């Protein structure tokens, strides 16, 4: 479970102060699929980065599984991120000199799994996204859609509870975008909580819940509906 209360984030550059998030409050329950929409520059990526503890914040309280994140040091935050959170980006962000196997291996290395377990998990994750035949390929040898699937496999390999996706279909054509969306839905059904930023209102509608961010705040915050209700409806 993820809970944010009155989170503030201010970017200061030379003379300009940007209030990227102001009094931002949100609660995401276990196994939810939340779509985040909003105009460009409204603070969606900032929200996601704070959620993934890649970015610090200037005020408010953020609890991940009842743990106050601001009280953790870098090592503890990294550990938490490694175990509980998977990231997917618009530009895939695969490491270009590593083949698919080694790309998916990255989070598992920091997790400290032994070689056998890593291999098992890598093969499973790549199989889950339908790319198990291409372990030795480099990212540049794949299409955009395939690359994003590798990125998803990488995010999933460590069995995270949360998947944070920042416009995962933004660089893909509509066919590929639908495939990736389908994959995310499957993953969600298998129990992973997903928070996905998107500009595509059609895709957003497929999520359990939509959150609209305007000017650093949740614009029409509806009281939480239990996930299962949404799923059953």
């Amino acid at each position, binding site marked *: 479970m993820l809970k944010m209360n009155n989170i503030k984030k201010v970017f200061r550059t030379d003379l300009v102060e940007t209030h990227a998030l102001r009094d931002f409050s949100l609660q995401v329950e276990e196994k939810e699929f939340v779509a985040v929409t909003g105009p460009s520059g409204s603070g969606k990526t900032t929200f996601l980065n704070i959620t993934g503890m890649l970015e610090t914040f200037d005020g408010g309280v953020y609890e991940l599984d009842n743990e106050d994140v601001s009280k953790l040091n870098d090592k503890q935050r*990294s550990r938490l991120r490694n175990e509980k959170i998977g990231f997917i980006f618009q530009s895939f962000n*695969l490491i270009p000199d590593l083949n698919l196997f080694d790309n998916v291996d990255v*989070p598992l290395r920091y997790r400290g799994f032994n070689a056998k377990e890593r291999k098992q998990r890598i093969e499973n994750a790549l199989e889950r996204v339908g790319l198990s035949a291409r372990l030795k390929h480099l990212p540049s040898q794949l299409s955009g859609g395939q690359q994003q699937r590798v990125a998803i496999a990488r995010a999933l390999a460590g069995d995270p509870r949360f998947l944070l996706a920042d416009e995962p279909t933004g660089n893909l054509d509509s066919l590929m975008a639908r495939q990736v969306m389908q994959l995310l839905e499957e993953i969600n059904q298998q129990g992973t909580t997903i928070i996905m930023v998107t500009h595509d209102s059609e895709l957003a509608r497929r999520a359990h819940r939509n959150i609209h961010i305007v000017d650093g705040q949740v614009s029409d915050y509806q009281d939480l509906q239990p996930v299962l209700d949404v799923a059953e409806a």
Partner: protein
Amino acid sequence: MFQYYLKLSWLSIKRTPMLSALMVIAIGLGISVSITVLTVDYLMSKDPLPGKSHKLFHVQLDTYNKGNTDSAPGGLPYQLTYQDLMNLSRSEIPSKQSRSLRSGFSVIPEKVGLTPFSRSARVIDNDFFEMFKVPFLFGSPWEDEVNNKAKKVVVIAKRLNDKLFDGENSVGKTINLDKQLFTIVGVIDTWEPTPRFYDVNNGAFSDTEQLFIPFSLIPVLELPSWGSNNAWKSEVFESYEDKLRSETMWLQYWVQLDTKAKQEEYREFLAGYVEQQRPLGRFEKEDAKTDIKDVVQWMENNRVVSDDNSVLVGLSFMFLAVCMLNTIALLLAKYLKRAPEVGVRRALGASKLEIFTQHIVDVGLIGLAGGALGLLLGQLGLLGVKSLYANYERLVNMDLTLIATAIGLAIGASIIAGLYPAWLICRTNPSIYLKTQ
């Protein structure tokens, strides 16, 4: 994790071959200069007789008259007079002792096809060989009685034995030195102590002598000195006898004193000797000093390692620092290029410390390559030293300690150079690099 970091480092070297090569070259150049200078410095100052050097002492007496002081460091003359040497050598305190002179002969070979040539000779007592651990190939030193009763015997060096007798056991054969026949009693194996500590003031880095003959032959053969003679008194020598009775300092004296107590006893003995000589009109100075210095102190006292060399060591380290500054710049360029990847790794759960360590391992590997290159270039540097200074020839070989030093220095310096770039890269905000490109 270390292996993983090595693998990543190897990949990144493959991705940035030019930058990596430039770094290896920069480090290699810095290391090669440092290690060349360090090699010379290290071999010049290393203990030539480990375990024994602190038991062997060189004896010094201040025989100067009032108002005259030797220009040697410490004000005590390097060498002794013949009369003092003869008197001191009667003491029973040292467990071993050797009087010593550098002289020389022309060697007149019997072998056909060889023309006479001159060779320097070390004129000593038989303890010399054991005191300085001189290895014998054939035969042995002459017997004790020869130390007092002159006999024309000689120990020759392997090189001379090779030349005159084709390397065969020549013990018992004779050799013609200045038209006198000497019987060979021993042949020593290659023995080139570096520095030549037993007579540093007559060329600390020149070759050892190839002829060793008994000190007792000096008055008999009226041997000339091939080393330095120091005199403060103007004396006219009408005969060789006059020189032996004079105040001319031209001989060296080594004693072995095994314990602290013996060393103390010997110091007192020297002080007593001065007092005993005063009634004869010698040792005019009220505070005429005496001293014994062990091998290491003796080399230090004689500045075997010149101050120039320390300056060179300092300069070479400055050059290394300049090379490392360049390496820092190259590392910054390389690591900033890699920042997006670091952003991804952070997002996937790498801590700052893990990113930092990864980059330190990376510079360590580059440092290792730089060290290897430095050693290669250093060998060339040493060849240069060899060709510049003929008498440094024996100084210019690296042993394991030096190789380890070079590699350690390279890795250490690289890691120091890598601290700032690695710190910079590990603390950059990962989110910046994860934005849409």
